[in-house]
């Protein structure tokens, strides 16, 4: 785990970071494949009462899986960044921050106790803050970074309260011991379920913030203001995955909290559909993938909430690979053509970047859940798990997830068709007017290393379809059997979605798309269901009102008290100041008198 902060020598920084990234990737993979002899090691840090605080590593199956995902994906992104950031003056800082990000995420994944987990959890948030706001000259990047930080902080506060409650319940900071203690408490005292529900709910609020679930999801699309490799990292293996991993880490706790689980299941499944719908109308390719991330995270969390630990983590792994692939490919297109607008990219001849388009196709197929690709296996695993859960919440969640899968297929088809649409000279100028300018003033074809990263991730995405059983074996919970009857709803949704996309965008003469024909819905979706506006009005308005009320109180009451305190302190200070002669030897004299008194006490009193 390396952290090198070299600003001046960007190339040196990049090499150092990539070298350490490679070492980290190899180390994490080795940890994944070789079962380590010790599964946790803790170096004591300080002891408070009966509580030992330590820093260490917990090498259980979940942590090792997560660590390997982080290590490999980060390495790909770092290699890719050598090309993408080659012309940026701040690339030394960029690589240092990437290393910080990876270090924080690995520290979180391997952390054996609650405190360390929380510290690294916040470090992940901090690193993403820096990276989203990497182009600090641009106001929207700063705004997005602040938004990301504050929105996730909302969740973090709830999570911290949850962790503290968990500690008071379990009297230990060790994650596994605390989980065992909670299970023991739940077995002995049935009434403690309410407390466990509260803890689980608070932790889940933290997850909502970090993993950008409804209703705290609005920061993630804005986080696109950061460089594309950052988005790739943020959306696949690190930041948002931290929330999912937290759920997986506390899976046993959530299993003891059925109400929270059902709410989480319904909410995340709703997010999956909701975000997929939003993704279907975005024109900015990065925003499409951003909303798609939110949707896929919802799917993962739904799987975890349905007690499908293996299924959820399997989907996390495959999603990490194909979403990083999609972002890196999109980044290559943006890098080459200097625009993020889907139609403009298509017009600019995206179809001629064959290797990049291959990446988009492979990743898109995985995302859409086309059979034979990684996303299909993991998504179907999640769906089957959710289907197997009794109760209305799960049934609702299942329906929402299936619908979400259909919409996902639709927007993937939309992106692919729009990008593949042959350039039409007549349209080129009309479309150019609409899209936002991108930071890359110059256009560069993707470099060898960018393509290498894309191809590696493509291969990884293809290979991961077979990883399901081994992940299940690692976690120790078998994946559900893929019964045809369960796969039919999901599959048919995918087919319908793809067919609609073909109908809407696959034809040369395609007019308005299906969603565009339903005017109000389309406008609402474009505006992200007005959530940002609502937050602006309600939350900020309320905060302002409170602030005004507080201002009045402050002016009338507190200031008066403050002035009084100030005058009192001032008087005290003047009094004390007169005692300060500034004479060195008087000061020494006071010390010496005290010294002499100690000596006399030693001589007489003992």
């Amino acid at each position: 785990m390396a952290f090198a902060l070299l600003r001046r020598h960007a190339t040196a920084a990049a090499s150092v970071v990539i070298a350490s990234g490679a070492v980290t990737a190899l180390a994490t993979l080795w940890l994944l494949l070789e079962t380590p002899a010790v599964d946790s090691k803790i170096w004591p840090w300080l002891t408070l009462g009966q509580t030992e605080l330590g820093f260490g590593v917990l090498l259980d199956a979940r942590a090792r899986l997560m660590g390997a995902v982080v290590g490999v994906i980060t390495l790909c992104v770092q290699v890719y960044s050598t090309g993408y950031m080659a012309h940026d003056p701040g690339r030394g800082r960029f690589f240092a921050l990437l290393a910080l990000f990876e270090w924080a995420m690995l520290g979180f994944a391997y952390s054996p106790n609650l405190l360390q987990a929380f510290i690294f959890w916040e470090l992940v948030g901090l690193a993403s803050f820096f990276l989203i706001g990497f182009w600090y000259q641009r106001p929207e990047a700063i705004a997005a970074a602040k938004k990301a930080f504050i929105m996730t902080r909302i969740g973090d506060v709830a999570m911290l309260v949850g962790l503290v409650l968990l500690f008071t319940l379990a009297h230990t900071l060790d994650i596994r011991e605390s989980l065992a203690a909670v299970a023991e408490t739940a077995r002995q005292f049935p009434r403690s379920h309410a407390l466990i529900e509260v803890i689980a709910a608070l932790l889940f609020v933290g997850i909502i913030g970090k993993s950008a679930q409804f209703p705290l999801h609005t920061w993630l699309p804005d986080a696109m203001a950061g460089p594309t490799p950052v988005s790739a990292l943020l959306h696949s293996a690190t930041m948002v995955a931290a929330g999912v991993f937290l759920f997986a880490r506390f899976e046993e706790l959530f299993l003891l909290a059925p109400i929270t689980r059902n709410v989480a299941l319904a909410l995340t499944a709703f997010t999956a559909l909701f975000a997929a719908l939003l993704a279907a109308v975005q024109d900015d390719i990065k925003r499409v993938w951003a909303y798609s991330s939110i949707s896929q995270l919802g799917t993962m969390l739904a799987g975890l909430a349905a007690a499908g630990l293996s299924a959820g983590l399997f989907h996390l792994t495959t999603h990490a690979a194909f979403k990083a692939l999609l972002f890196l490919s999109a980044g290559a297109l943006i890098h080459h053509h200097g625009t993020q607008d889907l139609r403009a990219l298509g017009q600019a001849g995206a179809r001629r970047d064959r290797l990049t388009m291959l990446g988009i196709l492979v990743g898109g197929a995985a995302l859409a859940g086309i059979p034979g690709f990684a996303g299909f296996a993991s998504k179907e695993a999640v769906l089957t798990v959710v289907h197997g859960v009794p109760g209305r919440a799960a049934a609702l969640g299942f329906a929402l997830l299936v619908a979400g899968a259909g919409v996902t297929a639709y927007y993937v088809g939309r992106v692919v068709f729009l990008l593949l649409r042959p350039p039409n000279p007549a349209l080129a100028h009309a479309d150019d007017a609409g899209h936002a300018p991108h930071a890359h003033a110059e256009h560069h074809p993707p470099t060898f290393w960018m393509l290498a990263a894309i191809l590696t991730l493509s291969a990884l995405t293809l290979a991961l379809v077979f990883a399901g059983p081994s992940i299940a074996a690692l976690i120790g919970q078998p994946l559900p059997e893929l019964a045809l009857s369960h796969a039919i709803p999901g599959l048919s949704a995918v087919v319908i979605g793809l067919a609609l996309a073909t109908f809407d965008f696959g034809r040369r003469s395609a007019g308005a798309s299906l969603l565009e024909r339903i005017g109000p819905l389309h406008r609402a979706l474009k505006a992200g269901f007005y959530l940002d506006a609502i937050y602006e009005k309600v939350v900020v308005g309320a905060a302002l009102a409170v602030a005004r009320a507080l201002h009045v109180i402050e002016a009338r009451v507190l200031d008066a008290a403050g002035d009084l305190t100030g005058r009192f302190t001032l008087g005290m200070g003047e009094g004390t100041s007169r005692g300060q002669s500034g004479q060195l030897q008087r000061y020494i004299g006071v010390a010496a008198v005290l010294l002499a008194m100690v000596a006399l006490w030693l001589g007489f009193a003992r």
Partner: protein
Amino acid sequence: MTPLTAFTLLAAALFAMGLYAVLARRNLIAMLIGIELMLNAASLNALAFGRYGALVDVDPALAAVSGQLLALFIIGLAAAEAAIALAIILAVHRHRQSVDVDALDTLQG
């Protein structure tokens, strides 16, 4: 009176005299002389205890060596301290044409 008591008493006397100089003398260099006396009292203590070792649990050779080492480190640190102190005294003298500590009352409240 055992040798150890004699040596430690001598050290206490040296320290007390140094303390007197630091408290009473107005000349900065005279104060520095007092400080040096106090430091030497500490070295003497270290050597005396190393020689008539109370360090019963420790390897005797190590005990003797550690007393001498402590004294050596004190001497080294005293050299550094004296260098800095004399430089400060020179600077003060250049500033105020005086080494009277009573005149240095910039800190007066």
